[in-house]
């Protein structure tokens, strides 16, 4: 009968999944509050500060707001318009949410626990739902490309022009920015020599040099692409209220709209996780967390805290950018992806490959210390060169003069003739 009982590994995995989903959903709710506070701060208002404990006068800085918002939107009428494709209309938000949650199977949310000594459970226990998944980075990629379906289907099933345009825009944007995103990732994968995200953190912790310092160009490319993939301002064209009402979720209301909004927030959280893990050292902080695989309980907690703090920092940056930048136009968006980010990403990849290839020769010729400095300076040189080249060539600049095959006089002439 022991065959039927779940093994300790399964129980551990289920516990991690529960922790992760609970944590993520709560965090998403409270991040909405943080975002509104941030908006209020930027716009010199007070922001939500009244909802506290119900039936009392205690306000608690408005910490009850997410609960109230959630209740309100759940209790709203779940209205399905007559003209929609019912099955896909209902499936789209589910696909999007499922994909955005499943991404976290491969993303570590801490380091490792100290040995627990439970029989059947491999020690140490990593903070990762699927530690045996050898292709973590690719998994993240695959699931974020599945998320495109949710958006595209939501727009199409709505049977609404605004929704459809929003869905098309969104999928075009996601497909276009997947390439610079991948190029940014590839540099890190090359340097770390692994597709596992926890191995990438370990590689940074061992050398103490975060990849943001070793590959500044890759960091910038990845950061911009991550903003676009999360569809945050200045890349929020899929929704663009002034042009498309609400984009692909124009026709949605109630709980289905909530699912869409939560998934969008989760995309931002995923992007923050990836930025921190790939480029900002994950749970590593010099002189605080150590770098080995053996940890005490305090060390495990410290690493978790450092990772969470970094992620919160990146999310705050996301929000600050949202309230400080205007939105791109669609042609500017595409120009940026294909004419600026793609070449810069390629330049970064070639630089990283070259440095990694000749690192042993460098170490042999100059000694370990000097070789390290040279390997750092070359990417920074390429970074500034790329920046200057992008600035001088301005491939993202657009010619706004109208292109017409007829002059205005010609048209008038024709009209008169008719």
């Amino acid at each position: 009968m022991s065959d039927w009982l779940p093994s300790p590994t399964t129980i551990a995995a289920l516990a991690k999944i529960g922790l992760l989903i609970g944590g993520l959903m709560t965090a998403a709710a409270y991040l909405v509050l943080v975002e509104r506070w941030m908006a209020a701060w930027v716009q010199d208002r007070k922001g939500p500060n009244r909802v506290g404990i119900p039936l009392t006068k205690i306000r608690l800085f408005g910490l009850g707001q997410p609960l109230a918002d959630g209740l309100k939107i759940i209790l709203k009428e779940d209205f399905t318009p007559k003209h929609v494709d019912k099955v896909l209309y209902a499936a789209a938000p589910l696909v999007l949410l499922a994909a955005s949650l499943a991404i976290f199977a491969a993303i570590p949310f801490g380091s490792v626990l100290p040995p627990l000594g439970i029989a059947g459970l491999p020690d140490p226990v990593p903070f990762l739902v699927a530690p045996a998944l050898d292709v973590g980075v690719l998994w993240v990629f695959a699931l974020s490309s599945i998320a495109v379906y949710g958006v595209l289907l939501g727009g199409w099933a709505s049977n609404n022009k605004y929704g459809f345009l929003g869905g098309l825009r969104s999928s075009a944007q996601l497909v276009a920015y997947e390439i610079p995103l991948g190029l940014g990732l590839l540099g890190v994968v090359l340097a770390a020599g692994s597709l596992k995200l926890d191995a990438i953190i370990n590689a940074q912790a061992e050398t103490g040099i975060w990849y943001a310092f070793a590959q500044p160009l890759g960091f910038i490319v990845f950061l911009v692409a991550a903003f676009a993939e999360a569809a945050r301002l200045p890349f929020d064209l899929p929704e663009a209220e002034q042009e498309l009402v609400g984009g692909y979720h124009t026709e949605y209301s109630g709980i289905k709209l909530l699912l869409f909004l939560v998934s969008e927030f989760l995309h931002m959280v995923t992007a923050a996780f990836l930025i921190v893990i790939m480029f900002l050292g994950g749970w590593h902080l010099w002189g605080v967390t150590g770098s080995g695989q053996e940890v005490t309980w305090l060390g495990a907690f410290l690493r978790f805290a450092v990772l969470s703090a970094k992620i919160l920092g990146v999310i705050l940056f996301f929000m600050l950018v949202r309230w400080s930048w205007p939105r791109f136009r669609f042609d500017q968006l595409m120009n940026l992806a294909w004419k600026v980010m793609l070449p810069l990403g390629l330049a970064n990849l070639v630089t990283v490959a070259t440095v990694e290839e000749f690192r042993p020769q460098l170490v042999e010729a100059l000694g370990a210390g000097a070789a390290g400095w040279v390997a750092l300076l070359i990417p920074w040189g390429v970074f500034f060169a790329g920046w200057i080249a992008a600035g001088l060539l301005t491939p993202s600049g657009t010619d706004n003069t109208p292109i017409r095959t007829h002059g205005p006089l010609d048209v008038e002439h024709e009209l008169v003739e008719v």
Partner: protein
Amino acid sequence: MTPDGGLSSTGSLLAVAVGCAAASLWLLLPRGESGLRERAARRFGMLLGAVALALFVATGRRLGGVGEEAVFLIVALVAVIGGAATVVTRSPVYSAIWFALALAGVAGVLLVLGAQFLGVATIVVYAGAILVMFLFVLMLAQPTGMASYDRVSNEPLLSAVAGAVLLGLLTLFIGRLSAGPGECCAVPSKAAALAGSGQPQAPVAPEPPADSAGVDPLAANHVARLGGELFGRHLLAVEAAGVLLLVALIGSIAIVSRTPPDERADAAAWRANA
């Protein structure tokens, strides 16, 4: 008859399963009729399909652990049902969605079997890139109604039979290959006969005894080994494929971006005047 009664019954079960699958597909394929008869045919077809699936599950070999078996069954059923629905559905957009589901199922099967890279790459390449392109085109191309070629299947009987024959042969021979050297010759020829292949095949070279018990599907070095193989032994093929794709890409850009010469001249002339 074969001396081993158990295997013979497996073979006949398989034959029935293939027959059911063919009949079910034939009934389900769209024939442009509508009304009660069509609906009854579809219901009966679904029933037959379920019977065929159950029979296939019954004839298959066991994997081992209960959890593994359950997960494999789920993803395999998703893949098979998705594939059948892709062919049977009338709306092109729904076909594409079912195809995506079938791909997800296939990726799941690959993940269960430990081919992590292949599984994830299937999703990235097919579901993530190619199928999204299809969806784009389908959604833009047919805002209203369906064309006749979507509503009617051209050769329902032939295609169903051909599919079933292929299915039976593949199941039979893959099963024989993986059954091991001892059992390979005892596999009954009944299903093969039904599938239209009366000739006894050339004896399959017995597999080297694979240590199937020692293969860990979660071994960490699978991707590394695959990468080493691709960029070691098959480097030339990989590079050639890459160059081919690049050429195709450049070619398509060259074809698309060619503006008609008179338009270009007009635009230039107007700009010079303005």
